């Protein structure tokens, strides 16, 4: 993940981009059907998780193989508490607090070690959380999960229709993107960037590396929990299979496919993976009549390997570089002073 050179300076687009994306997304429900809306809701939920994860991967230089577990803590906390009559918004905050605590407990001993101990620990944590969801039947409903989760409300506004949740989820997603963009450009963000380039150098300049890595991890876990809660209120149903190891890997693919050093990478990665998996659900059975949806994992595996080998910065910075290269070729040689595409966007 550690990349030097001009693209490391490629800053994500600032607030005009967020407003533009916001306006486009706001118009969509008026021109599209329920299917497109449901796909976009899935993209929005995944984007929230993937943005946090990409911040952690790209700026702390570590990976988590258990983010579906944090997503699941949010979803189950909201489901369990809302079914017992707790206010929906309060359950979101409680879920985030629990997730933050669990993430802190796991990261504290492991992030201080060199190597990928956190990756291994999150892998184990994700498995344990999933086993608890399946086995603690009296609370979690076991393999069949929990149903009938009451919707979120604000005064007399009830979030009970898809289009209402669509707006809620995307407002949250854009807020998270905006927040992370600001964080990346802040003093802390610059410190994290230095940390990802060289931990020794950052540490010698006085960056509390372990504490910042821990912070990035806890933040990304809490954001995943937020998305999980929203998921529970959207479907009004949760079950363990949504939060298994494969889901963690899918979040990882989204973050990496889009590009972990660009705030827009994660939403694009979430869109690519979600739309690809929807497309395969309709295409694969036509090509292989005996096949189930499981075949799509093969494509995701290939996608992950190919991107890391050939487009290691991810789709968004990769495309940005491609566009800039073409633009550079179109201008006369020597016309532009530098070949460096940095600072664009």
């Amino acid at each position: 993940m550690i990349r030097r050179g001009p693209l490391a300076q490629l800053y994500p687009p600032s607030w005009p981009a967020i407003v533009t994306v916001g306006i486009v997304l706001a118009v969509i429900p008026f021109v599209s059907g329920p299917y497109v809306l449901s796909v976009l809701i899935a993209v929005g939920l995944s984007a929230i998780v993937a943005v946090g994860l990409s911040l952690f991967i790209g700026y702390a230089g570590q990976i988590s193989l258990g983010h579906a577990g944090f997503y699941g803590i949010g979803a189950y906390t909201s489901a369990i508490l809302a079914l017992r009559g707790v206010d929906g918004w309060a359950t979101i905050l409680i879920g985030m607090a629990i997730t933050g605590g669990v993430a802190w407990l796991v990261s504290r001993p492991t992030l201080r070690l060199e190597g990928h101990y956190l990756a291994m620990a999150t892998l184990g944590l994700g498995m344990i959380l999933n086993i608890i969801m399946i086995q603690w039947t009296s609370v979690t409903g076991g393999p069949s999960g929990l149903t009938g989760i009451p919707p979120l409300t604000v005064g007399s506004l009830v979030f009970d229709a898809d289009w209402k949740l669509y707006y809620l989820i995307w407002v949250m997603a854009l807020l998270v993107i905006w927040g992370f963009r600001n964080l990346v450009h802040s003093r802390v963000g610059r410190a994290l960037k230095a940390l990802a380039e060289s931990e020794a150098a950052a540490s010698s300049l006085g960056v509390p590396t372990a504490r910042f890595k821990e912070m990035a991890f806890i933040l990304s876990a809490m954001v995943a929990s937020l998305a999980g809660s929203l998921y529970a209120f959207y479907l009004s149903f949760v079950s363990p299979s949504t939060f298994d190891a494969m889901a963690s890997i899918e979040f990882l693919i989204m973050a990496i496919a889009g590009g972990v050093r660009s705030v827009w990478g994660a939403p694009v990665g979430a869109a690519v993976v979600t739309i690809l998996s929807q497309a395969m659900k309709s295409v694969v059975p036509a090509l292989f009549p005996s096949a189930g949806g499981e075949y799509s994992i093969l494509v995701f595996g290939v996608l992950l390997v190919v991107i890391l080998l050939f487009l290691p910065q991810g789709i968004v910075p990769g495309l940005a570089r491609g566009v800039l290269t073409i633009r550079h070729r179109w201008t006369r040689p020597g016309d532009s002073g530098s070949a460096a595409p940095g600072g664009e966007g």
Partner: protein
Amino acid sequence: MSGASLLQLFFSGLTIGSIYALIAVGFVVTFSVTGILNLAQGEFAAVGALTAASLHMHGAALWVSVLAGTAAAVLLGIVMERAVIRPARRIDLLSVVIITIGVDIVFRGAALMIWGADPLTLAPFTDRPPLHLGGATLDWQTVWTVAISGVFFVALIWFFQTYQGKAVRAAVMNHTAARIVGIRPSRLSFYAFAVSAGLGGLAGTIVAPITGATYDMGLMLGLKAFVAAVIGGLNNAPAAVLGGLVVGLLEAFTAGLISSDYRDAITFIVLLLMLFVRPSGLFGRTAGKRV
């Protein structure tokens, strides 16, 4: 609980533990030689098991099927090293770990395409009635499993005393220094993948008569073996064998004495505890480097 039942649990823990041990040694061989945590390791077992089972079902002799299953895994390990790991050598190790996850998914998807979702069966290596020992039954497959992993345990200890084994240890300690004295880490990487894939494939063919062979068996086997390798210390091959037995026995006794629902959970709780308390493994000499 009677002594006989405890003995029975001990036997079943020993069996599955020996399987984990073989796969765990594969983890350790790759990790200590190349620095890569190959999370696709468990899939070699699945490919070995599925190849052997399908060949045997089509009439091949049992020993031919077992050898072919192991060979198929070796071939896959070699292809993986050449096609994916070697081109990725200039990428940072974290990305390579993620690449191995991608390869794992590809193997699993391909196995589903080739063999389908239904489990295949393989005949036990020795088709004789089980032994009776102290009131407990002992399957011949258990004897095979323990014997084969025991042979590898001894072979590993012997290997590291030989000239080649010392070359491997030198490369593990210091890549650059090893190169200066004429050891080629890139060739070692090739052999590491071939050997660890072969161990995984062999483990798969041994476990197939006990659990059956399915396209998704590699994930759990790989994860459990990984925990075994962490217990052993990730770069200590003989210790990984002991780690495998620890995991196997823990699982068997948890399932027998507490509840089979939490059999898998105990393994991952042990993983977390190990990472928190002794990240260098039970037998590690140096503590993890504090930053």
